[in-house]
């Protein structure tokens, strides 16, 4: 039976009767109460913090707009094989072209968007869901909204 609102990620969805009984676990909130702060999957929840739907929806729609006003968005950039990374302010760029140009200059090698191949250094990014994605698929504004860090892949690793 499907609920139309999702409360499943933090409710006891997998009820295992072999789990320790509640009275035994003092601060062990194993059943459902863990709120992983380091998890990459901290996407927007529908039931926390406790604000009403209208406000929640309005804020969601607005985040995109507001990001444009933010004056800086620093992300880390690594090149595969190079242990020391760089930091880059993505708001300083008008779009993917200027980003690639700048990165190519920074790392002293041509860098492209798109599919990985044996010749080129290709730019990828980690999004807010923790997934590694190809740079260039989504509009620049949306990219700024979701990017967490960048990685430049090596040509030989295929």
């Amino acid at each position: 039976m499907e609920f139309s609102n999702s409360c499943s990620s933090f409710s006891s969805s997998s009820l295992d009767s072999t789990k320790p009984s509640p009275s035994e676990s003092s601060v062990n909130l194993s059943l459902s109460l863990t709120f992983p702060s380091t998890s990459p999957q901290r996407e927007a929840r529908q039931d926390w913090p406790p604000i009403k739907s209208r406000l929640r929806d309005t804020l969601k729609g607005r985040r995109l707009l507001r990001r444009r006003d933010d004056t800086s968005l620093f992300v880390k950039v690594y090149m595969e094989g190079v242990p020391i990374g760089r930091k880059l302010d993505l708001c300083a760029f008008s779009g993917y072209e200027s980003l690639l140009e700048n990165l190519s200059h920074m790392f002293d090698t041509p860098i492209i968007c798109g599919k990985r191949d044996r010749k080129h250094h290709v730019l990828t990014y980690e999004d807010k869901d923790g997934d590694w994605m190809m740079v260039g698929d989504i509009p620049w504004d949306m990219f700024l909204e979701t990017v967490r860090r960048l990685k430049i892949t090596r040509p030989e690793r295929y």
Partner: protein
Amino acid sequence: MALRLPSKVLKHILSFIDSNEDRNSVSLVCKSWFETERKTRKRVFVGNCYAVTPAAVARRFPAMRSLTLKGKPHFADYNLVPDGWGGYACPWIESMAAKSPYLEEIRLKRMVVTDDCLERIAASFKNFKVLVLTSCEGFSTDGIAAIASTCRNLRVLELRECIVEDLGGDWLSYFPETSTSLVSLDFSCLDSEVKISDLERLVSRSPNLKSLKLNPAVTLDGLVSILRRAPQLTELGTGSFAAELKPEAFTKLSKAFSNCKQLQSLSGLWDVLPEYLPALYSVCPGLTSLNLSYATVRMPDLVELLRRCSKLQKLWVMDLIEDKGLEAVASYCKELRELRVFPSEPDLDATNIPVTEQGLVYVSKGCRKLESVLYFCVQFTNAALITIARKRPNLKCFRLCVIEPFAPDYKTNEPLDKGFKAIAEGCKDLRRLSVSGLLSDKAFKYIGKHAKKVRMLSIAFAGDSDLMLHHLLSGCESLKKLEIRDCPFGDTALLENAAKLETMRSLWMSSCFVSFGACKLLSQKMPRLNVEVIDEHPPKTRPESSPVERIYIYRTVAGPRMDTPEFVWTLHKNPEIGVSKLAIK
């Protein structure tokens, strides 16, 4: 032997008593007082629509003119109650249509209302005057049109934060040209554009119109035109404030506002651009209520606006106001009674912290009349809570939402026990409390011990053990509503304090450790409680000791309800599941 008051005299005395709490007390004195009271009560309030049957209410209060009903539990506001749970208005409307045809006012909160229902209201109550629907759903603009067209004496039509199937803006044109009685209209939750000429005409022929809340689809031009026709407004909800405005148009807007000399309450301001705020300056000195929760205005512009609002009593604002802005509020808005600060970034991994505990401390220090607080911020300290309690012992409602669950005092790394202890102890008139952050059993021991007047308590992500629930249920004397989510409370405390539940309106627990067995036991033990297990997985398929997803327990004289959906289990519905083997401790 006490002299018996003639019922005429008693009736006269009772005509001065409005509060239902007082009337409830009056009705307990003796049978004749009960009779006189019930025959004279005009305004009936039912806090839980399943606590009593509509027929019983209609029978008891034959003079009823106003009915207020509440349906779903409060946590439904935050998507914790699955769709289809219940809270249907229809049975009530049907009953009242048959037995209380002189009903004039209906106010519903968190209920499912259908178009049929609305049509029934329009058709059944000849002198219908007031319809207020708050956080309701299940109807469309067709139902609203029925109300508008049929209720000749309609004074108040307010749709507050409802989810409405919006079939277009035509509904507004259904107000007949002869209708001139409108005092309040709120359609701020609708999306579709209404014809501005219809609205202009309606406003022009409603000289008693005091409160008007427009939806975001109304443009600034539309607003100017409306304000010109209704300078007598005391409450205004603007439409969208985001459009590009030419300089002459801005002047017109300013002038329109400056003509509204009685404006006391302002809301809406959807997406207001800071350059339009000066148009509001003329009304600021008279404002007592300002709702900026949909306005993305930054601190400097907010301060520029708020420093002109010396009479402000109620302020709802986004955390974009920052601590600095709240410091300004503390110095300019000395009449402030209620403050709500909402999070502009509800996502948990937000790195921006626009407000800290300091903001609330400023306001607590500077605004001596402050009695109601709702504050969202990322983290807090015990020291701040202690200061707030010391400075504002007159607090009646204190709701702190520390967005980071289990967040300790970030300066000392301790739980926030001491801080909430100070609040419970210091604010002796506290009626409503929401706690958050890292809290141990101790915090709840203090709350149980000191918060004697708290009627509604909300708890999330807190606690160590069952002791916490036990402290609350055995300590808080005035407790009427308790809602808990994601806390390790369980069976023992619940079963030990079963009797307490009959003195309360309701208890909600979700993502806690209450077992199905305990629910069955409680249900068997307490026939005057409805124990509902709201769970995606049917309890039949699970062992008795496994925790259920949600429970909702409420006292009732109506018996078990018959309209439960599949995912709600009650003992009455599935008695074949049988007696629990769990022993009562």
